[in-house]
């Protein structure tokens, strides 16, 4: 690893000020994404600020009205196994338990998880292959290279990588908010606005600004929370990123869907909410798979496959349907 200095933060205000003033400083939480990027020389910060000592940022609060507040430093394992998270939002527990490995989940923080970089295998190559995310203007090796694992929604000619976070898919479906603190106070970012599409600047993946610290994730109460499911399809059964995944949450009247929340992972540079499908699904019977599938298709009109991933269009619709049916069984 290239050399850097390591500082310890004890106070959020001072940590935010240090980050704002120093463009070569990076926060480190679990380190499981950042240290890999540093080892691959994809980022070379001069100073790391260890934020694990910041007070009150690892709490998981089950709010009386049915929502959750998850501190940015809470570990993936602790959130996954929390009894109220399991009960109120199984989709969050499942998204976490289907991520990474037991060791990584003990280390990785929730803030770090939603900040993990959107990238593809070409990005890791140190100097030979073009990658606009790593070296702006160098081109995209995946656009006309091997792109089976890449995006079918939201990509640009500049970058076609997918966002790897499973948790982010669940949080997008649940309309969570990212609570961020900066020099001028706190702001609350709706989850679907937190990640941005690559456009011509693929290296900027979120709307977080320098000098901003994620302090918590707020999950609002929702009638769909309990009947929810995360379905993840991968090339091996465990310890692997999603080929395609879906987060589904439903409320029903008898066997009819009253309201639906649906988002996909593994298909876009950010968690991909299926808003057209959600609207079309309302009123449809869980016992009519044909009608469910037709409603889901409402969100696939703008899917654009690359050379090797057209199969994802069909696969994603089937994964969404299955996730919806399993969520329906929990209603």
């Amino acid at each position, binding site marked *: 690893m290239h*050399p850097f200095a390591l500082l310890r933060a004890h106070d959020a205000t001072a940590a935010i000020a240090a980050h704002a003033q120093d463009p070569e400083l990076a926060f480190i939480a679990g380190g499981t994404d950042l240290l890999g990027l540093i080892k691959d020389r994809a980022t070379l910060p001069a*100073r790391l600020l260890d934020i694990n000592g910041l007070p009150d940022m690892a709490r998981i609060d089950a709010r009386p009205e049915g929502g959750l507040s998850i501190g940015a430093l809470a570990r993936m394992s602790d959130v*996954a196994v929390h009894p109220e998270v399991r009960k109120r939002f199984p989709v969050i527990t499942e998204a976490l*338990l289907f991520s990474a490995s037991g060791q990584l989940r003990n280390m990785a923080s929730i803030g770090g998880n939603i900040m993990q970089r959107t990238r593809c295998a070409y990005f890791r190559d140190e100097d030979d292959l073009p990658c606009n995310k790593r070296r702006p203007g160098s081109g995209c090796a995946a656009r006309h290279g091997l792109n089976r694992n890449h995006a079918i929604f939201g990509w640009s000619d500049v970058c076609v990588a997918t966002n790897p976070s499973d948790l982010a898919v669940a949080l997008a479906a649940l309309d969570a908010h990212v609570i961020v603190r900066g020099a001028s106070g706190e702001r609350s970012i709706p989850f679907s606005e937190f990640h941005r599409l690559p456009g011509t600047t693929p290296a900027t993946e979120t709307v977080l600004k320098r000098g901003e610290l994620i302090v918590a994730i707020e999950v609002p109460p929702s009638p769909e929370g309990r009947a929810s499911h995360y379905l993840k399809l991968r090339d091996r059964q465990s310890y692997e990123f999603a080929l395609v995944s879906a987060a589904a949450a439903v409320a029903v009247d008898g066997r009819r869907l009253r309201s639906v929340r649906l988002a996909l992972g593994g298909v876009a540079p950010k968690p991909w909410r299926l808003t057209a499908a959600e609207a079309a699904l309302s009123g449809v019977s869980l016992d009519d798979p044909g009608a469910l599938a037709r409603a889901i298709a409402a969100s696939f009109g703008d899917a654009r496959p690359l050379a090797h991933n057209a199969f994802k269009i069909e696969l994603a619709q089937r994964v969404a349907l299955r996730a919806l049916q399993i969520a329906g069984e929990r209603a």
Partner: protein
Amino acid sequence: MSETRRAELGEQRVAVALTVNGRACRLAVEPRTTLLDALREDLALTGTKKACDRGECGACTVHVEGRRILSCMTLAAMQEGKQITTIEGLEHDGQLHAVQAAFIEQDGFQCGFCTPGQIMSAVAVIEEAKAGWPSAATADLQRPISLANLSKAEIRERMSGNLCRCSCYPNIVAAVAEAATRS
């Protein structure tokens, strides 16, 4: 910042106090030193193995404050004041830990390179099941989980963060199952 300036900053060693296998240790490490390198290079505890150095294989698994983690993906200086247990810390007074004994009985290895990581992970898997933690293989998240629920499918899922290049998986699963019934 220039490379020279960067190197000056990075090479300023930082003092770290750790308790490793019950022994208090004081180290002076470069900030970039991973916990794995500190254990192997500074403390000569070479039981913990370095394979991928990217969080992808589990060979470097150790316990920090009783929880399994990957020592290649954290910095030694971030573990100030922590209790670390490595494979060398499992046996007591010549008595192997139940998981170590089970790996021998069930022939849970060939080359042995992944074995320290497998064993450290397995010890934690048993503790996690005792604590009622579900996994991706758990059918009903709402039901309480105990050691009795540690089926082969559960063990495979919970141990998936430890790869074995010799592919001893069936015997590893058998060893963890045996140790779990003895625990």
